[in-house]
């Protein structure tokens, strides 16, 4: 319930910001045409109602679609333990730094650095295992795309 309220608050802030942007759009110039504001405004309205309902009510349980119990499907797929959020955010952070490095110094260096760092974070030895594996994967993909398939990859804006 508390979690839903936090999510609803975040959503309402986003909706308010998006609604402000929508008001800045120009009016239509065509007869009968509702204009560029219409669809975003309707969607934001519906989202606001749904977000508010997320605040006050428990999740509405979906009705069973078939005679077969939906639980039966869930039961057969083993539930997995929840993993800590901080670890995931760290991994996302390293990957984001990697993406920025790809933009700045190019595909190969950027990716080797970020993949090695991620592997090191999950417990691989940085040298030689993580670096060697990341280098092999990155170079194999680089040659496959740049040479074999002739698809250009980012070279880095600094070079």
């Amino acid at each position: 319930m508390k979690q839903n309220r936090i999510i609803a608050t975040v959503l309402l802030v986003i909706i308010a910001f998006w609604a402000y942007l929508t008001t800045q759009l120009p009016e239509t110039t065509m007869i009968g045409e509702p204009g560029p504001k219409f669809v975003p405004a309707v969607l934001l309205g519906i989202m606001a109602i749904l977000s508010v309902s997320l605040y006050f009510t428990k999740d509405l349980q979906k009705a069973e679609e078939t005679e077969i119990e939906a639980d039966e499907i869930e039961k057969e797929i083993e539930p997995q333990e929840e993993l800590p959020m901080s670890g995931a955010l760290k991994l996302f952070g390293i990957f984001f730094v990697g993406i920025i490095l790809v933009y700045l110094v190019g595909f190969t260096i950027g990716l080797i650095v970020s993949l090695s760092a991620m592997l090191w974070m999950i417990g691989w030895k940085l040298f030689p295992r993580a670096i060697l594996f990341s280098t092999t994967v990155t170079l194999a993909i680089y040659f496959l795309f740049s040479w074999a398939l002739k698809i250009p990859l980012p070279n880095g804006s600094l070079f």
Partner: protein
Amino acid sequence: MLEYFSQGLVIALQWENILFMFIGTILGLVFASIPGLTFSTALILMIPVTFGLDPVPAISVLLGVFAGGMSGGSISAILLGIPGTPSAAATVIDGYEMAKKGEAGRALGMAVYASVFGGIFSLLVLMLVAPQLAKVALKFGPAEIFALVIFGLSTIVSLSGTSLNKGLLAGMFGLLLTTVGLDPVMGLQRFTFGQSWLMIGIGIMPVMIGMFALPEIIETFQRAKNNKGVSKEPTDKQVVKASFPTLKEMKSTFFLMIKSSAIGTGLGAIPGTGGPIASFLAYDQAKRHNPKCGKGVIEGVGAPEAANNGVTGGAMIPLLTLGIPGDSATAIMLGAFLIHGLAPGPLLFQNYGDLVYAIFISILIIYIMVLVIQFFGIRLFVRVLDFPKVNLMIVILAMTVVGSFAINLNFGDVLIMFFAGLLGYLMKRYGFPITPLILALVLGYTIESNFRKALVYSDGSLDIFVQSPVSLVFLILALIMLLAPLIKPILEKRVKADKA
């Protein structure tokens, strides 16, 4: 039709197309065999590779992944008791029981036979129904297209998992994302913040790549760190060998196979239903056919496998004829079609009839490949279950960067992929389903542009949507779909009260 068929046959039988079908099938089987990996990830992985290919081999490889992926989930379901894909969940019940009794080979053989049976059955239905449906759809105007797509979108309800509220929010957010970029009627910039790379809008593919691949990769890394990998191995891998069902078994299960395949094909054609529901419904039929189901009998393996493979051809019907994907895999397929300049819909049949028939024939070839590869190569697939997932995930992570960048050679798409991945992870964690957002993102532009075009034609009168019978029917169906979860509990309460 015959002309298109012969042209399609020539295209499908070209050696490079067969090679790519083979590669796709192997990849689909491998990804579906490994619990925790999905063949949607394999589709995402292969999309950047297809950029350098012509449309037909590109689609061939993805069809291979799709059909192979549907079939491969049974391997780990039978050998480990863990379904490789959600569609194989019902296969576990009898398949794993058979494996425990030492009949893993028999169960695997039945699974392969049923998969191919279901796949080919659904292909025949697809070939019969799709061209006729496309002819009808060609007559649709903006009002009818709007109503049809709204109906397709209303399936969000059945894709919402346990929370309808969160499913609808995800869907609405997906629609909102489609408003970024150029306005479809006036050509004005909306929500672009002056960034030129946002003028083409938020790309479907970078979002799909991010949302499907990144959360899975991050979770695998975290589990690897915590050493929470799968370690169940109840079957002696050295002795596993698929044995094909006998003629007597085939005869006794023939009508069950037909029934299960029809269930799969029918449900597959309805957007938002898909494999897991079809396989459990078919399993229910198997229980009626053989009361011993649940104790390890071939009917319990064959029925769900025929049904979930029947979904393959069924799901292709709305995708190819109307451009409406029914689930995440077909949404990825739709994205791939668009990348290669082929817009699924009735015009695809009119303009690329040969290609459509090449797709049909390719599906047939792929199912023959599934039969041969799975039957003779089962030992290799058993070994695949041991493959370290982290190594594979590193390759996929690198491919997410390549895949999102190479679509438009635009670095903005890489950023979109990353943030979509982060959003996907948070959505998964807090119980928001991803598929409604993807479906909305795929259909959003069509909805807005046709809605506004229809209003221009009618001088702003909303009557245009109810004057056409086709449009009216689809809108009523959409309303029923959306209101069903609210009305059903009330009706059930009344029925209970009446009984009391």
